[in-house]
């Protein structure tokens, strides 16, 4: 067991997989010599050499396309897109290529790649460098989509992603890079498509993802301490495959559902899960399912405005308390 930052867990996760499989290659803007703009990949070039860890030009189309071509023909590439906002400049691969080639070719083509990216707000970078865009990927058939909230999950889910035979979009949260957590020694391999109950509870189910998980946990503690409400918190972890069993199982016990999303409101993952719950578990629900999201806005740069816009523990507490006492 060691304490590791989420940032260092990224490095260790990549290294674990590169050491295991020589077909794993890694590339992205400034990831090699410079170790990445978020310093998530320091030392990988030295460890694995310039053939396996490479600095491409500022050419996100080339990066994503090359990852796909390499994956199709036998490598297991990990590509980094520096900020998830930049998915918009290479969205063709995400939306039209990665997840469709196997289907269109009737199973002839494969696309076992991982795209890692820095997602989310909190750094006061403004509207084009702070977005939480996991729903841009969740909505595309054929992809898998993961977003870990702890260092341990970073390693385990990254390993699962690299070993998965399908294209996986791997969302790291920029505001979690500096956070720390216990990580066991040795190889860690987790499983895609599994949510985790990170705090059991009886009165309500709160779903959260990535940076929202610690906030939901904090809210749950406050709800308990201040209002006597015992909430179950589930770290969704994997949007596709979605662990509806764990989610609906929890709902069957608590009878109330809250989702805490960082992405802007419209068509977020919370909407999808709420619509599943409303359809399939309607009679389990003792009250309206509630989505707590970033409002449907571009993100402001200024600290006090950015702090207002993301769901906070206090906002979660307030919303859950009001809803449960209604």
């Amino acid at each position: 067991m060691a304490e590791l930052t989420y940032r260092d867990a990224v490095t260790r996760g990549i290294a674990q997989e590169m050491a295991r499989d020589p077909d794993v290659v890694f590339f992205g803007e400034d990831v090699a010599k410079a170790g990445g703009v978020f310093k998530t990949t320091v030392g990988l070039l030295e460890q694995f050499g310039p053939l396996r860890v490479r600095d491409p030009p500022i050419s996100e189309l080339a990066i994503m396309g090359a990852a796909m071509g390499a994956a199709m023909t036998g490598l297991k590439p990990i590509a980094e897109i520096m900020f998830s906002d930049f998915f918009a400049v290479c969205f063709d691969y995400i939306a039209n290529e990665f997840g469709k080639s196997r289907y269109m070719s009737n199973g002839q083509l494969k696309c076992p790649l991982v795209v890692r990216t820095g997602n989310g707000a909190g750094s006061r970078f403004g509207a084009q460098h702070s977005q939480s865009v996991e729903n841009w990927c969740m909505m595309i058939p054929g992809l898998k989509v993961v977003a870990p909230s702890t260092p341990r999950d970073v390693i385990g889910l990254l390993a699962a992603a690299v070993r998965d035979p399908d294209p996986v979009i791997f969302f790291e949260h920029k505001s979690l890079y500096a956070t720390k957590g216990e990580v066991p020694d040795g190889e860690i391999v987790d499983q895609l498509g599994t949510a985790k109950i990170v705090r059991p509870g009886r009165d309500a189910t709160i779903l959260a993802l990535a940076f929202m998980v610690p906030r939901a946990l904090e809210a749950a503690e406050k709800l308990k301490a201040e209002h006597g409400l015992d909430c179950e918190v589930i770290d969704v972890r994997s949007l596709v495959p979605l662990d509806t069993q764990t989610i609906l199982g929890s709902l069957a016990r608590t009878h109330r559902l809250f989702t805490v999303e960082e992405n802007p409101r419209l068509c977020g993952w919370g909407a999808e899960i709420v619509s599943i719950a409303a359809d399939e578990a309607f009679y389990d629900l003792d009250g309206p399912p509630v989505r707590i999201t970033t409002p449907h806005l571009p993100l402001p740069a200024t600290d006090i405005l950015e702090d207002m816009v993301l769901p906070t523990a206090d906002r979660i507490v307030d919303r859950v308390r009001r809803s449960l006492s209604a």
Partner: protein
Amino acid sequence: MARKPAHAPGETAGQPGLNDDIGEKMRLTMYRMQVEIRQSEQRAYDLFLQNLVKGTSHLSLGQEAVATGFAAAMKPGDLSFCTYRGHAHTLARGVPIERVLGELMQRDNGLMRGKGGSMHLTSVEHGVMGSYAIVGAHLPIACGAAWRAQYKGDKDVSVCFFGDGTTNIGAFHEALNFAAVWKLPVIFVCENNLYMEYTPIGEVTSVEHPAADRAASYGLERIVLDGQDADTIYRAARAAYDKARAGGGPSLIECMTYRYSGHSRADPAKYRPDGELDAWKKRDPIKIYRDRLIQFGIAENVIAGIETDVNRRVDEATEKCKAAPPPSLDLLTSDVYADGGWAWRN
């Protein structure tokens, strides 16, 4: 502009003859290939008129020499990346006619059993690593395949076919620079058929030769070929493959050609100036090649034998397709993910 092929007709006539660097066997192969593409495409068109081809389709009638010259120069294991206008390149790699027509006719015997359609022909066993319908998308993908070859020390080369109009999209630029900097074994082949869909390429492009005039931007040699002469294509292709295999990096090759039919099945191609089609038909690649075979002393009956044989095979393929059932319905949800299924939840 850019309406005249860069090489004069009959340019290769001065070559040493049948036993030159190409030779009789390869020439007969290339003739057969061109005839097969011609007849298959013509058949696709006829079947469309009979309402037996559904969806869209993009023919390469008139462009047969490019596909032929490149495919003939390939080694097994070399990889092709095509566009929606990919029937020719697919056939040229040896994919059975039946499997191509079957896909166009949306039958179970189609190359992808009807799941992909005419724009996405793929036959991995023949090295056809897919046909891509988003303009430009496959250039970076071909780079990735070439990177794999470079990394693994495999000796195969990836070749990526695209049109003149594709040179104006961002992915073209990114792929060319990327391939040049990483010295990837990839060949970019621009089939300049003078039109991006319905608009003449000259009206939307800042240079006369949309690919070749930009080669210098990537430190590459400027190459413009007569796309109607399979020998010319074959020689250039061989050189590019050799260079790529020797670690010399990418090539960008522009082939001047012309499509006889409209852009896609819906297009009567009325936007073309009078006489343009006729002028190009005078330089029909199959006619050029047939004349050369004759000139080199190949007997007329050998040539006719190839033509008849291809015709028979196209007929047979057509009949098989007509008789083939539609795809089975369980294909709908198969092969989204590697486990064979489509479950996005548990």
